[in-house]
């Protein structure tokens, strides 16, 4: 099977007064269509840099990215992004926030169809009764639900999730992971998520890519996660491979944390 997404020798360098700082170096990864990939690593290791290059929000220094047979240049609605903070427009309601993008990519559809799309996604993320509220009236968890609906509603070729649940408490995080995985399963969208939560990575992914610590971060290890789908949290946590994999990932993170101890 050919690769749907290819990242080849992806490198990111920033110019600094002390000379160039290499954040990501020769990052290679191939993703199949419909796969759910997680990038795991410490804060500041460069995982978000990889994701933002894929999103087209950050220039690529060297190497390149091919998505569905086309080399990427710049941002576009074919990649839906869910950010750590929901980044909603505060003066628009949840419905209007989602409609903003839907109006663009479905400009040829009629207005009923566009309304149906927005209502569908806001309902399945659990906001049926709150879709006409503004972000300030919504809890942090609900705002992030809007963020997820907004990304899926555009029917992107690829979904990019940058620590989407990092700001939520662990229990709300569990609920939203369930919402995300169900939507993902129905839509079969190729997804790349960045996180440092080991349990989140195990529950959602087909493959987990461990990144070494920056500077010059690269792929350290790739772990296949073969829990049967559709996944349910209880069954996943009872799976005999769950805790061995969890330990393996925690150990990877610990080893790379110790390589770069804080100075104090």
């Amino acid at each position, binding site marked *: 099977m050919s690769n749907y997404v290819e990242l080849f020798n992806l490198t990111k360098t920033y110019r600094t007064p002390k000379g160039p700082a290499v954040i990501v170096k020769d990052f290679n990864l191939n993703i199949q269509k419909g796969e759910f990939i997680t990038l795991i690593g410490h804060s500041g290791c460069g995982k978000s840099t990889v994701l933002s290059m894929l999103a087209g929000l950050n220039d690529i220094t060297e190497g390149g990215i091919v998505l569905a047979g086309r080399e990427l240049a710049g941002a576009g609605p074919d990649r839906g992004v869910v950010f750590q903070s929901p980044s909603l427009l505060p003066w628009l309601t949840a419905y209007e926030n989602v409609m903003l993008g839907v109006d663009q990519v479905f400009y040829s559809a009629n207005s009923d169809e566009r309304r149906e799309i927005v209502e569908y996604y806001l309902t399945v993320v659990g906001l049926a009764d709150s879709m006409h509220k503004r972000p300030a009236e919504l809890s942090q968890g609900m705002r992030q639900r809007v963020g997820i609906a907004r990304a899926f509603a555009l029917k992107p070729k690829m979904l990019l999730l940058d620590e989407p649940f990092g700001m939520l408490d662990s229990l709300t995080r569990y609920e939203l992971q369930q919402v995300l995985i169900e939507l993902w399963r129905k839509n079969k969208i190729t997804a790349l998520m960045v996180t440092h939560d080991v349990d989140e990575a195990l529950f959602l992914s087909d493959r987990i890519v461990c990144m070494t610590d920056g500077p010059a971060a690269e792929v350290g290890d790739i772990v296949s996660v073969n829990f049967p789908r559709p996944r349910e949290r209880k069954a996943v946590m009872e799976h005999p491979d769950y805790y061995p994999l*969890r330990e393996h990932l925690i150990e990877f993170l610990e080893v790379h944390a110790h390589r770069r101890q804080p100075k104090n």
Partner: protein
Amino acid sequence: MPYLELNNVTKHFGGAPVLKDVNLAVEQGEFVAIVGFSGAGKSTLINLIAGLLHPDAGTVKLNGKVITEPGPDRGIVFQNYSLLPWLTVFENILLAVDTVNPGWSKTQKEEHVLKYIAMVNLTPARDKKPGELSGGMRQRVSVARALAMNPQILLLDEPLSALDALTRATLQDEISRIWLEDKKTVLLITNDPDEGIYLADRIIPLTAGPEATLGESLKVEIPRPRDRKGINHDPHFKALRREVVETMLASKKDRHASVTRKLVLPDIEPEDLSAPPRPGWRKSPIRRREIKEESVEVSK
């Protein structure tokens, strides 16, 4: 007789009670964790024990005496650190020590402060102000300040929730080490089941609010000192973890009324915006099939 005792405590701020019929008994030297969702009433519970709030019904007793006001016998660590920004690390802690032990000599106070600064590994930063410290370091100051007052009970109100995963793990290890050193009575409030299991002797779920109440307490029988990696092999850890997560998620689900709604999702393809539309060229979107209808379970 339990050391800290809550009897049928109810608290409301107008409207439905936030907490209802809360019963809790903590023995001296015990480390108890209460796990609950955001907004469940965890902080209300801590504030009642701290004496910052008064229950509408029921009693809160520490060491047999009803709590009526805040006092130095209860040390609190808040999520937002609550340090005085114009004072250094040393001065922030000295302020607390000074207030609790006004009769001590200057050297005695200073030695006491330095001991606790060393305990949380902040000696190199003792003369820095909170603004110059990272979140994790600020929280260490807050922990040192609470411990330096030598309280009878330590109340930790989501102390690590604002920190990233790695810093959180480091501070959990430190709290665990410090607790093993002087075995204070500790009540930890957290939203992270793993944190509760890793640190506590007993873990108690707080059901989702309103009318939140404490569920059945679960004993954590994992030998100390605990090893973050090693406990992945412990069958008791796995079972406990599953039980806590399940209980919490189920308590929230009970609050949801499930309604089935019929939704329509048009099965159309998005337009390619990188190619500008040519006038007169395809006016309707690519439709793969006719509209599909789907029934979705919606939680209210």
